[in-house]
């Protein structure tokens, strides 16, 4: 029985067992739900019985497909949000790449001042939840269209026009600022690692400064820029909170907000179909990215020693430019935080008089005449429940995703080049491309009912942990793959020769040596989960509320003070945690891939 022996030998190696288990689990958690959601688009849901005459719940129907793509209202339900989404995503890409690219070039290639400060400030909008800037924008520029005016109107008396305060313009600006750091990190990384000799060789051959940038620098950075564009595009496409905050006052709908409306409303079938469309677009982007990266003149080896790169002398504009950049960065990072603090102390926003300030939203017992008698944040038990849920969720997600990511890294690196390893590599990265809200919709569809031995999970805390773990697995598995890959196989093999067990090799050798890399695999999911809204929003129920979904509800109710206080709180937690971990281990969220 040689076959049996072969299987036995294979299974004696831990990496094979891990690979097999992970492939099965991830197929179940990532691929299977995709089929489930396709099924849901052809199904009659209970809330749709009224409209689909003579049908029963669970019947097969093409109603959703017809009305979304060719129906009377398809323009409003689907095509308009689709076009809006495309426009927002494209404009966001443009802003993010130009801004991030210029900053990256200035920091790596010129003698601009405050480089360290500029770099760390520039990363902040990315570490903060994306809706931070959206809230700040509202605090500043909201007009009387939806109630009390913002700071700008209060201070200047000028009424901001609707197009400026809400809708397309602020959405793209805010998303652009949020994803610019992403471009900054990627392009800056390439510029920093790019072999300076490539540019020097052109210099020796008498090419001018501009010709070098055009003919050498840009073409070499281009693949990275293209990848960045695609990733920013897919992230912007799946952004929910920003368009929800800034778009809803003027009914500016994008796919995600439409998805939320339909799934929470009367037509989940539409929602599942919209989710499916988003997933298809996401998968297309992945494919395009793969093709671009795998092209013939790929740039595997652009790194080299670049220690003595000659910096562009900015001469006269050096100091003014440095100061302008710094002020700009302070405006988009520190100032928003200040507005949150200030707003949370104001009875009604838009009035900067002394009697308008109060601490009741922090420690008040709640007055029946103000905001339905909700007690102040520090005395509000719901806030504490939400906080506890958020922390508990993020810790669990981080532990699970981080550990699985490490195992993925181990299996992928050890089995490098095999079909299994490649499949696992791609599979573990796939959730990254699923728009968060669509992913939430998938799990809603998949786990609303009992599946085999898994009971219905809807409404449980477990489903939040499950989806968070899967969604952030890409961060963790990238970190895991990098950590194990850098280590090289000899280190582990040296221990194997002595007969050290697998468990001991991991705990005593691999993890301690690569602790910074391993830790970032845990840190990234934690911080991402802490600030996540759109992934969880479809799945939370009153008993499993988390801080971000409470924030969203407060904002919808117009209780800005609470919303502001919570956002300030989340931002401070995320930033200080990042700072602490960065100081202790050198790991940092800004070293990971985007999200």
């Amino acid at each position: 029985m040689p076959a049996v022996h072969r299987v036995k030998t294979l299974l004696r190696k831990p990496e094979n067992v891990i690979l097999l288990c992970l492939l099965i689990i991830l197929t179940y958690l990532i691929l299977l739900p995709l089929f489930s959601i396709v099924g849901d688009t052809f199904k009659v849901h209970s809330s749709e019985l009224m409209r689909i005459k003579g049908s029963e719940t669970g019947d097969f129907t093409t109603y959703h497909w017809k009305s979304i793509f060719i129906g009377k209202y398809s323009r409003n339900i689907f095509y308009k949000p689709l076009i809006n989404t495309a426009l927002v995503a494209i404009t966001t890409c443009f802003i993010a790449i130009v801004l991030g690219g210029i900053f990256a070039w200035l920091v790596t290639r010129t003698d601009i001042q405050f480089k360290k400060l500029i770099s760390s400030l520039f990363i902040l909008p990315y570490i903060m939840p994306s809706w931070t800037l959206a809230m700040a924008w509202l605090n500043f520029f909201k007009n009387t269209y939806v109630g009390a005016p913002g700071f700008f109107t209060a201070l200047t008396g000028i009424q901001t026009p609707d197009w400026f305060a809400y809708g397309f313009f602020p959405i793209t600006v805010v998303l652009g600022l949020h994803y610019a750091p992403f471009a900054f990190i990627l392009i800056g990384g390439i510029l920093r690692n790019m072999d300076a000799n490539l540019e020097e060789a052109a210099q020796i051959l008498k090419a001018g400064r501009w010709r070098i940038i055009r003919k050498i620098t840009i073409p070499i950075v281009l693949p990275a820029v293209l990848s960045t564009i695609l990733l920013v595009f897919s992230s912007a496409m799946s952004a929910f909170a920003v368009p929800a905050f800034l778009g809803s006052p003027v009914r500016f709908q994008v796919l995600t907000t439409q998805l939320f409306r339909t799934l929470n409303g009367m037509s989940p079938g539409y929602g599942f179909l919209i989710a499916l469309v988003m997933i298809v677009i996401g998968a297309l982007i992945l494919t395009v990215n793969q093709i671009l990266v795998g092209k013939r003149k790929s740039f595997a080896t652009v790194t080299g020693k670049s220690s003595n790169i000659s910096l562009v002398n900015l001469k006269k504009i050096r100091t003014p430019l440095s100061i302008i950049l710094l002020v700009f960065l302070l405006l988009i990072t520190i100032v928003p935080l200040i507005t949150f603090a200030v707003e949370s102390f104001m009875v009604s926003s838009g009035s900067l008089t002394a009697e308008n300030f109060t601490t009741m939203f922090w420690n008040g017992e709640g007055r029946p005449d103000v905001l339905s008698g909700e007690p102040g944040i520090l005395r509000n038990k719901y806030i504490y429940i939400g906080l506890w849920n958020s922390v508990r969720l993020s810790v669990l997600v981080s532990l699970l995703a981080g550990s699985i990511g490490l195992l993925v890294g181990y299996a992928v690196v050890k089995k490098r080049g095999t079909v299994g390893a490649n499949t696992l590599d791609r599979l573990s990265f796939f959730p990254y491309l699923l728009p968060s809200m669509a992913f939430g919709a998938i799990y809603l569809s998949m786990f609303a009912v009992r599946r085999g031995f898994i009971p219905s999970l809807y409404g449980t805390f477990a489903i939040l942990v499950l989806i968070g773990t899967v969604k952030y697995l890409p961060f963790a598995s990238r970190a895991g793959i990098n950590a194990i890959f850098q280590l090289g196989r000899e280190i582990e093999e040296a221990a194997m020769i002595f007969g050290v067990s697998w468990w001991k090799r991991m705990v005593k050798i691999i993890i301690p040596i690569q602790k910074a890399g391993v830790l970032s695999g845990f840190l990234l999911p934690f911080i991402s989960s802490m600030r996540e809204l759109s992934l969880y929003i479809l799945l939370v129920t009153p008993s499993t509320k988390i801080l971000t979904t409470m924030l969203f509800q407060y904002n919808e109710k117009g209780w800005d003070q609470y919303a502001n206080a919570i956002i300030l709180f989340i931002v401070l937690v995320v930033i200080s945690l990042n700072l602490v971990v960065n100081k202790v281990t050198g790991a940092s969220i800004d070293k990971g891939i985007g999200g």
Partner: protein
Amino acid sequence: MPEIIIKNATKRFGNVVAIENLDIVIEDKGFVTLLGPSGCGKTTTLRMISGLESPTDGDIYIDGKLVFSSSKGIDLPPAKRNVGFLFQNYALWPHMTVEKNITFGLENLKWGKADTKHRVDELSELLRIEDMLERYPNELSGGQQQRVAIARTLAPNPKVLFMDEPLSNLDAKLRIEMRAELKRLHLETNSTFVYVTHDQLEAMTLSSRICLMKEGRVQQYAAPLEIYNHPTNCFCAEFVGNPTINLIDVECCKDDPEDIQLVSEDFHFYFKPVSGLPTLRKGAKFLLGLRPEHISLTENGTIKSNVYSTLPSGMETIVIIRIKETYLTSVVFGGLDFKVDSEIGMSLSSDNYFLFDKSSGSLITAGSLSVDQKYSGEP
């Protein structure tokens, strides 16, 4: 005449002095090698001459033209210095085909189509890369990339060519092949080559002159064999030559210029200078340098020694012998081998053994040696 003159060049990076008071003249059509251990400032020197780096102080002339002067505030960019530069990692542009890589420099000079085509043909034939013009650099092997890089550098016919360890990324066999190619190229292109390496053998075999550097200072600037046979100090003697020169700690026990006697832990030497009569102080400490080929091993050698280890390579055999507690390396030519631990006679018959000052390392004189029987013998 593209002669290069460097006067009093100093380069500091912050507080670290990379080059100190460098003063060399690189003659027209020479093949000059900057040689030294890593961190000795040789690459920095090359980058300063080419204009990729600016010295902190000093003057540099290329072809009679002042290209850098700290006092006059002159600092011509590399493009204005009419030089070629071959990088250690080739620095081929990954997004351009081989042909594009070669023609890029010519485009910058606004060469016509026909001339460019002609030049590409000429170079690709010279460097045997005709079949690769349409390929991208990452589709070429290391040796091919190297040749493309050379073609790109040569294309605009630079009169001065700088090379920064161009062979260090190649495997051993290819390196020897390319060495011969480079030497031919030097003759065919009729230009001045300045070459950086840390490989003493490469420097010995290629150059017309070697500039041997250490910690930012020139140790000796001379023809390869001159450095080998007449090193100015202990560092030069040790850096050049493979296997490495034997150095023995000695103390002067008789300072009569006519009859110099030196003692080491295991030997008592009589030293006879080839020329001049140096004055040595009794009790002063020295290093005695013996090139391996100047230690002969014969059956009837006067000094008895033991074979400690042998490394036969066919053409020659490196033998490490032991005499009491002293280990010496010797080279025997021809396909001989010796039995380990067997006894063998040794003799010192050359007249080019070096005497270095122990503390400064500088050469005192060279001369012949004989060994007192009483102190040697019984290993």
